[in-house]
């Protein structure tokens, strides 16, 4: 056991894990986090707290994580390479660890020009792979990157992102392998809509045996309308939304209902793919729907059967 | 006044037009008041022979080193003024003009015209004052030899034309032997006969040197004395010449897209493949929808003649049959060949038999069934490499881009390099021959004189100011600027055509221009605006 986190336990036990995303508020009040925590408690094994998502200043992911811990939920803090240099990253990890945070997702972060403060200077002292290397050394060797010893090493369960929908496609599995080599224990993927491409990617992952070295949680996102789908397709780089999905939402009587239904079907299909050890639900500004999705997808049973490997 | 300049002003008696829009005497007095001017004279019709003599006489007598001609538009008169200048012992370009007729007398009412005339004459004086003698050589020797590059009719005709004008020609061909390429289509049988005779005569013409199985691999030198490197059986052969004519061969083929092979179409009765559609080719390799050529009509006729019960259809956006081609077209219609005017590139569906989805100009969308689909294709394989080597750009059709705008259709941006365009007109042999003759006559114009004019209104780099930024090299349409051995730009005078684009562009203001220097343009504007502020 590397960190002893709930997520790690669930995954190591071979259960199908569920993580869900919570966007910290643009607010000095933790009210909305507490509200989401109460709604979603028991419907996921751990909850991601985004780090200045889409490059907009929000409540810090570590502070939000602490709020969540107080509510009895397990957090996964996300940490971008955009906003911190290696010193800040390491000190924040030590602090977060002291406050009880065990799961960290290492990511590059959206470029600052997407946000509401385009003029900001980015950092990118490290990239997300180097970030993993640094955290792994802290945990396994009890040292900061330069080699100086830590009194107490942080017990961490290290996560990384993977985007099977970005280019060059052939390189995407190589990049996953690098992340695994750098120290990733689990992977949360970009939202999957193009199931066919994801399956192609998974087969390449399996061919390299990576599915046995890292827990892959497949990302899903419920869509509220075909307009959202079109936006993701056309405006968000590294997203592929098939026309079939857009059509379904467009033709639906109740597009929101349809969006949930599509998401549920996706989860069910993903569950059948070898090497997928769980799902990561990104219900952006729609967190209240997570329990419904989990229930409908039939993965709400938090009691685990130890004989099933990632069912 | 610039040191040691002395300006004479010659006012033509007709400068104000026949009716005299202004008082020439007053104008003369005005000009004479300029401290820059040595003398002013009114010359009776300066372009007449007596006027010319008088002008020469005056210039000599007053020992001026430059002069201003205030007369009608200099447009066509400049050669005359050059002569006057030379005869007076001055630099042939040592004059400036004031266009008092077209830009003043003819366009303004008289009191205004008189005032304007003064301004124009002052402007010319100011410009003349700043005139700097340009490098100028009007008798630069030219290598009296032409190189013609290409196989086939155009190259042959160009070579023959030049040889007949007494010019030695190197005809540089890719092919091994010298054979009459059979695939030319003539409108006119007499022309065909003559062309055949020409090509035969060419092979034994004493002035024509055939360089066969050869590839041009290098090109350098300056207009009037080029050097070619020709590779032949692994050896490099240098060839010197004063002019180059590019005349690559255009290969025209009929390519089968569906069904029976071309050979079978033309040789025997069609068994299957009775419904034949002939399409025009597009630029590049795909199917096009442009002009149906006379050649395609001929091809259709041959198919029809071989197999009377076949259905032959020609498709294209335009049915263009120029000159006597009109008769071919009519003949083909009589034979029952169908012409379909299409608006868009047809879509082929299925194999033989296939369906062509076409947009008929009058009937709208049509589905035409065909057993055989043939496309006319043309390719000039040598053209792109010649384009690169000689710096003659290609147009969108893949043809040479020439200076057509100057009514000199086979002149190129490279002075001394002439090009026969291969995709002209109806692609009939006569069109090609016209191109070849045109190129040959331009080359002959340069070579028979034996000398060429160089310099004058050219651009020149001041090396100490040059940043070697390459802006001039990249912008010049004529390839005149190069980075010289000293690492600074220099302008090859023989190539410079005096447009001044580089002068206006140079970020270091390192390029000066004779005849239109910054100072001269500035002075003209200043005079024109005198007293306005």
């Amino acid at each position, binding site marked *: 056991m590397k960190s002893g986190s709930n997520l790690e336990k669930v995954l190591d036990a071979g259960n199908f894990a569920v993580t869900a995303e919570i966007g910290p508020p643009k607010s000095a009040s933790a009210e909305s986090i507490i509200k989401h925590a109460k709604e979603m408690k028991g419907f996921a094994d751990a909850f991601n707290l985004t780090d200045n998502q889409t490059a907009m200043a929000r409540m810090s992911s570590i502070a939000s994580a602490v709020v969540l811990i107080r509510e009895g939920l397990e957090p996964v803090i996300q940490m971008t*390479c*955009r906003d911190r240099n*290696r010193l800040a990253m390491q000190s924040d990890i030590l602090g977060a660890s002291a406050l009880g945070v065990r799961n960290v997702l290492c990511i*590059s*972060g*959206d*470029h600052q*020009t*997407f946000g509401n403060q385009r003029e900001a200077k*980015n950092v*990118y*002292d*490290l*990239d*997300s*792979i*180097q970030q993993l*290397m*640094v955290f792994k050394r802290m945990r396994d060797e009890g040292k900061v*990157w330069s080699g100086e010893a830590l009194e107490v090493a942080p017990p961490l369960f290290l996560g990384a*992102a*993977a*985007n099977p*929908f*970005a*280019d*060059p496609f052939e*390189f995407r599995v*190589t*990049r996953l*392998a*690098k992340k695994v*080599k*750098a120290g990733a224990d689990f992977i949360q993927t*970009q939202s999957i809509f193009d199931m066919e491409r994801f399956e192609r990617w998974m087969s390449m992952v399996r061919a390299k045996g990576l599915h046995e070295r890292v827990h892959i949680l497949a990302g899903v996102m419920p869509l509220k309308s075909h307009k959202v789908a079109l936006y993701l397709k056309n405006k968000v*780089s*590294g997203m592929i939304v098939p026309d079939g999905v857009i059509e379904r939402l467009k033709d639906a009587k109740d597009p929101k209902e349809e969006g949930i239904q599509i998401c549920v079907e996706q989860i069910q299909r993903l569950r059948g793919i070898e090497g997928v050890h769980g799902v990561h639900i990104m219900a952006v500004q729609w967190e209240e729907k997570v329990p419904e999705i989990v229930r409908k997808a039939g993965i709400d049973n938090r009691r685990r059967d130890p004989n099933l490997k990632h069912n | 006044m610039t040191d040691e300049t002395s300006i004479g002003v010659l006012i033509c008696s007709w400068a104000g037009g026949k009716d005299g829009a202004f008082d020439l005497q007053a104008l003369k007095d005005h000009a004479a008041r300029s401290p820059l001017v040595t003398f002013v004279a009114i010359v009776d019709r300066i372009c007449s022979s007596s006027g010319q003599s008088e002008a020469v006489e005056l210039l000599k007598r007053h020992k001026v080193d430059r002069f201003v001609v205030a007369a009608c538009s200099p447009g066509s008169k400049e050669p005359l003024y050059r002569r006057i200048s030379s005869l007076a012992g001055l630099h042939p370009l040592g004059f400036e003009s004031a266009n008092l007729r077209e830009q003043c007398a003819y366009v303004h009412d008289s009191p205004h015209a008189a005032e304007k005339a003064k301004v124009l004459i002052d402007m010319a004086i100011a410009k003349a004052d700043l005139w700097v003698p340009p490098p100028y050589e009007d008798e630069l020797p030219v290598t009296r030899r032409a190189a013609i590059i290409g196989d086939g009719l155009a190259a042959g005709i160009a070579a023959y034309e030049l040889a007949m004008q007494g010019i030695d020609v190197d005809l540089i061909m890719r092919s091994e032997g010298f054979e009459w390429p059979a695939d030319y289509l003539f409108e006119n049988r007499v022309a065909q006969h003559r062309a055949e005779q020409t090509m035969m005569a060419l092979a034994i013409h004493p002035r024509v040197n055939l360089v066969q199985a050869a590839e041009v691999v290098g090109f350098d030198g300056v207009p009037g004395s080029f050097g070619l490197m020709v590779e032949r059986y692994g050896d490099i052969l240098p060839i010197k010449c004063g002019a180059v004519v590019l005349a690559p061969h255009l290969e025209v083929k009929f390519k089968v897209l569906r069904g029976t092979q071309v050979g079978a179409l033309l040789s025997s009765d069609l068994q299957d493949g009775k419904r034949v559609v002939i399409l025009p080719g597009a630029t590049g390799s795909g199917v096009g929808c442009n002009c149906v050529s006379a050649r395609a009509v001929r091809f259709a006729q041959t198919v029809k003649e071989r197999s009377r019960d076949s259905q032959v259809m020609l498709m294209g956006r335009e049915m263009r049959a120029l000159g006597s081609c009109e008769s071919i077209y009519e003949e083909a219609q009589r034979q029952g060949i169908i012409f379909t005017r299409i608006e868009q590139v047809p879509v082929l569906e299925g194999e033989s038999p296939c369906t062509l989805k076409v947009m008929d100009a009058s009937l709208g969308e049509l589905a035409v069934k065909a057993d055989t689909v043939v496309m006319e294709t043309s390719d000039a394989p040598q053209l792109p490499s010649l384009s690169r080597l000689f710096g003659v750009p290609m147009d969108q059709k893949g043809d040479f881009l020439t200076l057509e705008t100057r009514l000199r259709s086979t002149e190129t941006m490279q002075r001394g390099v002439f090009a026969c365009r291969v995709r002209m007109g109806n692609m009939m042999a006569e069109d090609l021959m016209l191109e070849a003759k045109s190129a040959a006559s331009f080359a002959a114009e340069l070579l028979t004189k034996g000398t060429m004019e160089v310099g004058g209104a050219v651009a020149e780099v001041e090396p100490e*100011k040059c*940043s070697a*930024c*390459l*802006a001039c090299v*990249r*912008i010049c349409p004529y390839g005149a600027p190069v980075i010289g051995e000293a690492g600074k730009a220099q302008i090859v005078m023989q190539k410079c055509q005096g447009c001044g684009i580089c002068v206006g562009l*140079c*970020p*270091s*203001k*390192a390029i000066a221009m004779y005849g239109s220097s910054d100072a001269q343009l500035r002075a003209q504007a200043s005079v024109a605006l005198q007293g306005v502020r």
Partner: protein
Amino acid sequence: MIIGEQKPFKELCALLDGHKEILVAGCRSCVAICLAGGEKEVGVVAESLRLYSDLNGKEWRVDEVTVERQCEKEFVLDLIERTKGKDAVLSLACGVGAQSVQSLYPGIRVLPGLNTSNMGAPEEQGVFVEKCGGCGDCVLHLTGGICPIVRCAKSLLNGPCGGSQNGKCEISPDVPCAWDQIYHSLERLGRLDLLEELIPPKNWLPSRSGGPRKIVRPEAVLTPVEKELRGAKE
């Protein structure tokens, strides 16, 4: 070479407000080539300023000059005569040039007429693209000859982020993804294996993290004895 661009004309006017005797100083080096501060641009700016001054009663007296390289003391010292009586020099050189003018003429305000942007190359006539970040620790041998430090918007060293799509960067469809280019370059070179290696955190010390960088070539520096024998005045 160094790429820069002129500040907007209105900004130049605002910079010069309150000054009277102005020298617009250009440079024949990089900024001439990137069409920002060569003699022609100096002429355009100077003439524009004169026109602006005349129209707005500013009474500026605008002189113009262009030197070989504004970053070199010897060339800047040639301006001694031209700077006499001036109260502002509008430098159309890069930031290096403007600073060297200021250091040699401490009594005159040197105003930057350009925004110095980057180290790059002309891609075609009139198009200049950043190519090198001057990070002081070159990795081009690992990246197929394409610099990820400046050509990747996130300076990533271990491959493209999830925003790379169709060869374009997530920040704009006009920006090529450097890592996509690197991938294809290494593919052509048959060295995709290089992408499998983990590149550890970069040493930024030779970059800006070490304060102003200084490179000393001992064999080129004059020794104290040489200086004494040359009678060099420093």
